[in-house]
């Protein structure tokens, strides 16, 4: 029985099959990304916590300008147009500001130094809890 040598495809890189495989994987990645975006429940409620206590809960569709006090200073939370974001904060790194806008259920902005957390909750927040794989 004639078998191919171990080094058959050595010396050749990115053969047509390689490229096809890579393109297929990239397409699969993009396709599953689109599917995930559709599956992800849309956000409904904005919850703002300061020092682990809930200080605000309201609809994502109601425009708000919230100034939350914390140990470092004031963190300004904006809610408008179905998204929530931190527009300014007295913390050093401004990670919360750089996080940008969040709109999908489960998304979180956290200002750790000022102990402020902005969370988005979904309409059917626990819809996945009943699925057993």
């Amino acid at each position, binding site marked *: 029985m004639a078998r191919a040598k*171990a080094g*058959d*495809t*050595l010396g050749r890189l990115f053969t047509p099959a*390689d490229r096809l495989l*890579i393109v297929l994987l990239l397409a699969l990645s993009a396709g599953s990304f689109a599917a995930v975006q559709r599956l992800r429940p849309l956000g409904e409620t904005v919850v703002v916590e300061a020092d682990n206590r809930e200080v605000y809960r309201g609809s994502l569709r109601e425009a708000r300008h919230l100034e939350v006090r914390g140990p470092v200073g004031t963190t300004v939370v904006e809610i408008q147009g179905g998204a929530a974001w931190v527009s300014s904060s007295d913390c050093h790194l401004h990670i919360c500001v750089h996080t940008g806008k969040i709109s999908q259920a489960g998304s979180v902005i956290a200002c750790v130094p000022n102990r402020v957390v902005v969370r988005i909750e979904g309409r059917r927040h626990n819809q*996945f809890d009943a699925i057993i794989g």
Partner: protein
Amino acid sequence: MRHTLGNRRIVYGALLVATGLVLFLFESLIPRPLPWMKPGLANTAGLLALYLFGTREAAAVTVLRVVVGALFIGTLFNPTFLLSLGGGIAAVVAMAMAKYFGRELLSVVGVSVCGATCHNVAQLGLAYVLIVRRVELFFLLPAMLLAAVFTGVLVGLLAHLVLTHGRRFVPVVHEGSNGISGSLF
């Protein structure tokens, strides 16, 4: 000078395990944004074992590297370890099958990409079964697939470099009709 291939396999297998461990430890030292984001350089050792020897050797090199590596960084038998082991075994199986069935078509890079993809998908599946148990975990799948393309190509190119330019330092092995036979240098 002729030796039995058995000895050679043990010596080069051990060298590959050591190489994999060095790459694994090097990788563990690089800071990364998320604990599971790794280029998977250590898999180069398993891929080389597959091309130089065969499936059994690739599996042995990978399992030994995972176990000893976990011993080094202190994660032996915890969930991370099970994820590494499962991912490693999935990668070896995928690469062996890709190499066997795609012999004439796929290069080292293609085989490596197959391994990386199965590694990531298997880890996600295992993480679901063992740790998270939330369907939201699979929201990571697109990122994992995308990452597999890049890490797979990286590891494949690395292995290609060793297999072509490292000819003087590695044994040339041909698959004969009755198992493996070959000569060193």
